């Protein structure tokens, strides 16, 4: 075919097919607009009203301005849930997943290590199973029954049976979330470490640097960008964790594991305070945005 002919066909076709664009893109835009964007916008509006699910106020919701926000910022329940979320994110995502994921990624870098394929595959398991299954497996491991895996492990060390989900609920769900997130950290760090040249590390070893020094002064600065990107992503996903914790504790015992996602769910669907729950969601989103921009600033990456 001649180039000129093809070019002519292309231009003509382009003009005539303009009409097809709405047909092609329309369904996607419509679905995203109605079921993803509209709820987000609607949520901001609901946060400014006293909407309830049931009862007198449900019939005639009033616009109350910023009152929900004022109530929330003076409410111990909500501030407590924010604190627990911070605790949950810090220990499970920023410390646990990052450290263990980095260890796994560093291990996988060794040329002499045998069984890397199997190791990598096994590490992926906790991430790919549905969250309900993840919760269920840990419910069994940490069950208060005396023959649960955890209690038998305690027995080996000569200690009596315990009920970790009741006695140390926050530590338990943090441990479980670490378990679920190691694989994601490992994948991200593995990709980042590939860009660190072996020669550089070899040279620093020749100069007598210890492994710790090499990691601290050579490796870490070189993968700074990906590490902060990972921290940003894991913070966002960890703030959004709901099922994993709700399945096991429903926020309890008491309010010990009532992180913000569960608090929002409870206030909206258990206490039918839709307006209050929406306002809490908005505050959570604002905090998340601030946090995200801080990470981006720290990583000196363009977003």
């Amino acid at each position: 075919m001649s180039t000129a002919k093809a070019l002519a066909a292309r231009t003509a076709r382009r003009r005539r097919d303009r009409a097809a664009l709405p047909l092609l893109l329309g369904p996607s835009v419509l679905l995203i607009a109605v079921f993803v964007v509209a709820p987000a916008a609607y949520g901001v509006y609901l946060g400014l009203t006293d909407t309830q699910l049931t009862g007198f106020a449900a019939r005639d919701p009033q616009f109350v301005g910023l009152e929900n926000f004022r109530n929330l910022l003076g409410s111990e329940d909500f501030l407590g849930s924010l604190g627990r979320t911070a605790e949950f994110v810090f220990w499970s995502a920023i410390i646990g997943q990052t450290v263990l994921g980095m260890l796994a990624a560093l291990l996988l870098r060794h040329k002499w290590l045998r069984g890397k394929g199997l190791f990598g595959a096994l590490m992926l398991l906790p991430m790919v199973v549905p969250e309900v299954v993840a919760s269920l497996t840990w419910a069994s491991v940490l069950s208060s029954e005396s023959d649960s895996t955890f209690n038998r492990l305690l027995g080996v060390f000569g200690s009596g049976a315990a009920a970790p989900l009741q006695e140390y609920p926050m530590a338990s769900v943090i441990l479980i979330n670490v378990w679920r997130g190691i694989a994601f950290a490992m994948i991200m760090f593995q990709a980042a470490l590939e860009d660190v040249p072996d020669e550089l590390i070899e040279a620093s070893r020749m100069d007598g640097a210890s492994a710790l020094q090499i990691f601290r002064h050579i490796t870490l600065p070189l993968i700074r960008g990906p590490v902060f990107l990972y921290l940003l992503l894991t913070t966002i996903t960890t703030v959004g964790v709901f099922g994993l914790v709700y399945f096991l504790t429903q926020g309890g015992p008491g309010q010990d594991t009532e992180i913000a996602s569960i608090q929002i769910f409870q206030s909206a669907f258990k206490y039918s305070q839709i307006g209050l729950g929406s306002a809490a969601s908005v505050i959570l989103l604002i905090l998340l945005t601030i946090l995200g921009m801080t990470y981006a600033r720290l990583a000196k990456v363009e977003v």
Partner: protein
Amino acid sequence: MAATTTVEPGGAPAPAGPRRRTPLWAVVQRALQYVLMVLLALFCVVPFAWVVLTAVDADGGPTVGLPAFTLDNFARFFTDGATPRLFLNSVIVSFAATALNLACGVLGAYALSRYRFRGRRTFMFAILLIRVIPPPATIVALYLLMVKIELDDSYLGLILVEASAALPITLWLLKGTIDAIPFELEEAAWLDGSSRFGAIRRVILPLVGPGLGAAAMLTFMAVWGDFLTPLVLLQSPDLYPLSIGLFRSFTAFNQVDWGVLAASAVVYMAPPAVLYLFLRRNLMRSSLGGAVKA
């Protein structure tokens, strides 16, 4: 070969002197790292050992041990009460949502890849940014919205929501795949008399396979594993998918039937695993190689 490359922080200190003098150190270090690897792997795997072993155990408890082998738990899962219904519900919602997601995704991604229009880049980045919002933060408003448009507590509502939630990823993935399909192939089809849509069907669809497989896998897994959306949107036990069913049977009774729960978990994990095996060849194959050169 190097004795170690980067050792973990806080691990054993590396030998400071020349390697020759401390071969023992290197051996100890390697051994320590093998131990670390085994511990990490055990941490990740032991909970699953429980699921698999207890599912085939006649007197299953919350403990990892050698089972008294039986398939009774599975038999009870498929014959008892409402559990097959849960499985069926999960299948209906997941397949319908994935199909809808892919259908919209292919057309939308084609438009994003082949047309140049105002707001295209903005749209691409906007749908990516939406993904940053944690689902629990919009679920309250979503529920009320669905009640208002009378789509709560129905298959249709859940399918629409799930398909939309996974659309941004599908659009990005398929746009990348379609970008890689040479435009000349389509033009050739046009010159042979195909319409725009005819060319999409004859040229794009056969070649978009690997991307479609990946998108199908991601969407299906997201819908199949979702817990929060069905928990909020569905009230009728008749419509519950497996995720909610498992949760209810775990919390409803004081005496937990670990055997059946474990069997349910295995059944629950099977379809995504089968789909993965089925699509894996599809994911690996690049069907574009010879198309242009030939």
